[in-house]
């Protein structure tokens, strides 16, 4: 008989007024008892909807059943066979739109906290020193992966498991892509990313750092080196700006830059070599996960922080949990508000931002109600930094020197659902193909691409 508790078993968290001064992880994870209790809430539907909501197709009721029986090792085996990076997805997936969004228990009451149990199982396995790094015997085929973010790591892991020799080319000095430079320590500790990368290395994946593909080697040159397929997972590219006056002032950051300084270069630490401005009042423009991450970092750096978003709360694209956590930590939400200009002092430093009130009109192409400016409602707020979190445009670098590779209208690498591009042997997935999306969608793309790469190489024999 399932546990019919209506709400999710709460997960211990750092107190908001404590954690908004440190970079330690916010959510502290279930105890074994809490995990078992939550797993027992699964009623094991005949046709589990949760699985259809999972981009990597984890057999969710099966691993929950093992947890419910306290067979954590069994749960880990099921989970890690389907998902190469469970400790990561358990932390950063927007479960409310995926597995948990489809959970029948959510119709009356709250869905099963699948993400929290997933995280528990992954962390438990790591504590026990368990790592699912078994691979098939080497099959003698070489595959190159460009980028070591969630898409690249997942694809590399899947292929290594099948027996391929995989080389991952990473442009930065540390592997992990957005997991390392983008998502903050308090949401995804970098030790966990390093652990997942280590597991891939144990599976025989070769990770080459400081390799900017398109510059040091082109994709055709990678093929010349004996690789039979290339997976482009180079992520999203340059940050977008609003094209309003004042964006060149000192104190205007893109979220990518602000987060990279903090997460990759550790600028928040005393004595760090990489600098960052210590601001008093910061406006973060945008309403996605990246905006929440930047806002919560700025708060931890000691600033009063406002999220400035042109639509209303219902349209915020961020994960519900991130919005909730941000509010708890004292981030102020200025909704239905849009910047018009940024003003500077005589030295060219940000001094204030002029905004205009917005109201929601008819739905636009995205299906969300279009924000319309309220005439004459401009007002000025004093701020000393503005962080633009408006999304990114595709990075053209990795595909330089690759003739005949088709791009989409927006400049992404054109790839079908299986990751195939217009060039034989070249596959693409994650943000490089879709534009900015989520970690789990990138992981799903990596998994699908690994399958098609395997089929492609086998078909040539």
């Amino acid at each position: 008989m399932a546990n019919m508790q209506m709400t999710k078993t709460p997960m211990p968290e750092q107190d908001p007024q404590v954690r908004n001064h440190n970079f330690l992880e916010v959510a502290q994870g279930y105890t074994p008892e809490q995990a078992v209790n939550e797993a027992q809430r699964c009623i094991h539907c005949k046709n589990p909807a949760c699985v259809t909501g999972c981009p990597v197709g984890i057999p969710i009721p099966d691993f929950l059943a093992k947890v419910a029986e306290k067979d954590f090792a069994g749960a880990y085996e099921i989970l890690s066979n389907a998902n190469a990076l469970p400790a990561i997805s358990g932390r950063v997936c927007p479960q409310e739109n995926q597995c948990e969004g489809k959970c029948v228990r959510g119709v009356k009451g709250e869905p099963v906290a699948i993400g929290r149990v997933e995280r528990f199982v992954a962390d438990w396995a790591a504590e026990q020193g368990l790592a699912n790094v078994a691979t098939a015997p080497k099959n003698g085929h070489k595959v190159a992966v460009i980028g070591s973010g969630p898409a690249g790591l997942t694809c590399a892991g899947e292929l290594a498991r099948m027996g391929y020799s995989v080389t991952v080319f990473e442009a930065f000095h540390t592997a992990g892509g957005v997991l390392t430079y983008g998502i903050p320590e308090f949401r995804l500790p970098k030790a966990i990313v390093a652990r997942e990368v280590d597991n891939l290395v144990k599976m025989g994946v070769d990770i080459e750092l400081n390799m900017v593909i398109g510059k040091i080697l082109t994709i055709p040159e990678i093929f010349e080196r004996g690789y039979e397929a290339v997976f482009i997972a180079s992520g999203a590219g340059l940050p977008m700006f609003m094209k309003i006056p004042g964006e060149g002032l000192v104190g205007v950051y893109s979220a990518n830059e602000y987060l990279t300084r903090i997460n990759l270069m550790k600028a928040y630490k005393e004595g760090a070599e990489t600098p960052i401005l210590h601001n008093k009042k910061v406006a973060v423009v945008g309403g996605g996960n990246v905006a929440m991450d930047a806002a919560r970092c700025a708060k931890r750096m000691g600033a009063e922080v406002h999220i400035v978003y042109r639509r209303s709360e219902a349209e915020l694209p961020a994960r519900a949990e991130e919005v909730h956590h941000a509010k708890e930590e004292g981030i102020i939400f200025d909704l239905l508000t849009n910047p018009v200009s940024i003003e500077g002092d005589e030295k060219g430093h940000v001094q204030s931002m002029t905004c205009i009130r917005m109201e929601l009109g008819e739905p636009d192409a995205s299906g969300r109600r279009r924000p319309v400016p309220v005439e004459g409602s401009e007002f000025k707020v004093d701020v000393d930094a503005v962080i633009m979190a408006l999304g990114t445009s595709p990075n053209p670098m990795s595909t330089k020197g690759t003739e005949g590779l088709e791009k989409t209208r927006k400049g992404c690498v054109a790839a079908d659902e299986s990751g195939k591009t217009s060039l034989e042997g070249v596959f693409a997935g994650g943000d490089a193909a879709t534009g900015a999306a989520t970690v789990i969608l990138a992981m799903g793309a990596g998994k699908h691409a690994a399958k098609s790469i395997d089929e492609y190489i086998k078909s040539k024999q």
Partner: protein
Amino acid sequence: MKQYEIVKKKVLTPEISQISVYAPLIAAKAKAGQFIILRVDGEGERIPLTISSAENDLITVIYQKVGATTLALDQLNEGDCLHDFVGPLGEPTHVDGYGRVAVLGGGLGCAIALPVAKALHEAGNQVDLIGGFKTKDIVILEEEMSKACTNLYICTDDGSYGFSGFVTGKLEELINSGVKYDHVFAIGPLMMMKFACKLTEKFNIPTTVSMNPIMIDGTGMCGGCRLTVGGEVKFACVDGPDFDGHQVDFDEVIARNATYREFEAERKRDHLCRLGGGALNG
């Protein structure tokens, strides 16, 4: 040789040194105008340096000991390895088919002007290279520069060697004497490039500048190196580092490059303290 090993190190002046780093893949690809990003150690900052030459598996860069990272870099000697070395980044300088060009190098900028002048010269252009320094004692690369151009003019601010005055003064003198330039390249401190552009604008000579904004990843991700060119946002790492000097908003770049000046001064003081009191006078 090991990856990223400093194979050769040469002290050019008390403030400026040159290192050649073992990086065969980068050396095979690098072209004039491109840059690398390096980290001295595992905790270090990423700093961009323009490639001075690329041959025999070695990338040569020239640096001035201006901040904590370049001071730390200077502690390394032949046989030591850098932690990270990434490149070649940025777009190469366009060198074909100009005709007669002037290349202006200011101080350390001469280290960058040199490969650009050389590439322009090898591409068949007639190249006047104008190198400016504060004073005679810190003139660097004179011999190398003389081989890389048609005419070399050295200028010193204090008149202790060559032309007395700034590179812009020499350029104006040459133009007034009747030399017709099809294109000017200005490479050096922001102020020097700004004034070079003001001058060439007056004479209507197209001018390319090599921009060196603050940069982190250098691969088109962070957007830190953005600048305004002709009213549009451009990124030095992807679109540059070369830009049409007449379109660049120099005042904005000058302000942005000073963003961390206080922090940098503090880090430099800390670093010099760690090195010991003697270095403070060095």
